[in-house]
């Protein structure tokens, strides 16, 4: 298999396989999670039912008092790489072509040099939060294989994308193929790892907030 055949394979059969596994997995997991039955909670909500959930959605954008000082890298690095990922995925023109292919709509892209800059910042932020996770005893204790796996499958598409766009390390054909392949690995991983938080983060915040609202936590 030469490199163009490799690229054709990742753009063809491999993408079909990964998209199929992703769709099956995501439908399965979301239905499974949101069909779980919970014990009825008879406690009165603090004020309006569910309002605490909406407030928590907003409130958790900000660190609780004292936490930022205790762990600034977690908050700063976390924000940077999440926003960076969103910019790279949703504002880089070749990605927009893919999005249009899937959902039929598109919007304006950012110039490539800006995406390049954001990518470097994102990579640095991700390496920093990983180093912080390894260095801090508590975070290291709380981290299992899945945390590191999620970091790797998220980091690889960003790294290979940067290499491909800037023609580094290997030929563009090979790095583009590796980039697409790593994105496919990420796609397959999403339903079956803690990366599922891409879909569940907002409902989870709301749910936790709403439950807390029935336990006396002020809205």
């Amino acid at each position, binding site marked *: 298999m*030469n490199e*163009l*055949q490799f*690229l*054709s394979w990742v*753009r*063809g059969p491999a*993408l*079909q396989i990964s*998209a*199929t596994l992703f*769709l*099956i*997995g*995501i*439908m*399965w*997991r*979301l*239905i*499974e999670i949101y*069909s*779980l*039955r919970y014990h009825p909670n008879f406690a009165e909500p603090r004020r309006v039912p569910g309002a605490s959930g909406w407030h928590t959605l907003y409130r958790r954008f900000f660190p609780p008092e004292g936490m930022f000082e205790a762990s600034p890298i977690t908050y700063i690095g976390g924000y940077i790489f999440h926003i960076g990922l969103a910019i790279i995925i949703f504002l*880089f*023109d*070749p*990605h927009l*072509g*893919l999005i249009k*292919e*899937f959902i039929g709509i598109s919007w304006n*892209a*950012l*110039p*490539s*040099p800006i*995406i390049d800059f954001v990518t470097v910042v994102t990579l640095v932020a991700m390496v920093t939060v990983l180093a912080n996770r390894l260095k801090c005893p508590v975070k290291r204790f709380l981290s299992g294989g899945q945390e590191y796996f999620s970091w790797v499958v998220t980091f690889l598409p960003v790294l290979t994308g940067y290499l491909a766009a800037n*023609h580094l390390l290997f*030929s*563009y*054909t090979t790095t*583009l193929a590796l980039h697409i392949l790593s994105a496919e690995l990420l796609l397959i991983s999403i339903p079956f790892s803690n990366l599922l938080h891409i879909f569940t983060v907002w409902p989870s915040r709301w749910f936790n907030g709403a439950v807390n609202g029935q336990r006396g936590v002020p809205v």
Partner: protein
Amino acid sequence: MINLAERFLDAGISRRAFLQYCAQLAALMALPPSAGRAFAEALITAPRPSVIWLSFQECTGCTEAITRSHSPTIENLIFSHISLDYHHTLQAAAGDSAEIARSEAMQRQRGKYLIVVDGAVPLKDGGIYSTIAGVSNYDLLRETAKDAAAIIAVGSCAAFGGLPKANPNPTGAVAISDLIQDKPVINLPGCPPIPVVMTGVLAHYLAFGTSPALDRLSRPKAFYGETLHDRCYRRPFYDQGKFAKSFDDLAARQGWCLFELGCKGPVTSNSCATIKWNDSTSFPISSGHGCLGCSEPNFWDAGGFYRALSLPADPLENTTASAITGTIAGISVAVANRLVQNTAILEHQPVIVTDLEKSGG
């Protein structure tokens, strides 16, 4: 044997023009300035080499390209002053006379002649899908290559199998390098290759007796060392994220990047963007069409010509079926979870303080 210098004088080529050509050739092939002098010295004394041009499963586009290039320039002169002893399209002889000319050239310059091949070689069913004078392409290649100095595989069909090898490859076509391992094979892919690339490599061989530096696909690095995308005049628009959305829209006419229209320039190594065609007049991207990637192996089967590289090679299939399958799986797991919960509820036995006291004994 008359040498090239005498040929040049006969044709009215001045010493200055000849030296300029040598310098240009050296520059074109990314050789140091001293190579221009080496070219000149070697070419002056070079005898006319015998070249046997074999055409197999091909469309004659490569011959069309080389014969219509830059005419009349010094490159063409060099080409016309090699001893082209066998070429179906260009030779006057036919039938037995043509085959005798080939045999004589092979005997006269045994071990020194060059073979230029355009076209792939069919192997399926004994190679019957392409024969010349009743001889299969494979047998003709094997016989002719036996005493050759080197083989230049011209065009993507000879270099990589090209269109004949495209899926489902009904004739079992293969590239020259798949069949010849004991002779140097220089690949000059393209559909067709750039004429000056063909003449440049021939001149290099004449001058130095060796092929120029080759990459891992046996292509001269001087011509195939960079991608079209790297040297494309539309590249700044790619960097700015400015893309033509359809052929001949305002963006396309303003020179914006053709990536979204399926241009394969980023994955294609060739010199089209720098050397160009028709006396450096133009190349496909200049005329508003994306690169097809014709000098890359298996370019026919590398996804649609008009689908961007960042898109799936084919539209996604089975998405609805996948979503339905996932939904069924999710519902099944949900029902199973409920059954477990229901069973647990049914089997639940309340424990009161007295029970604990009893068990504590």
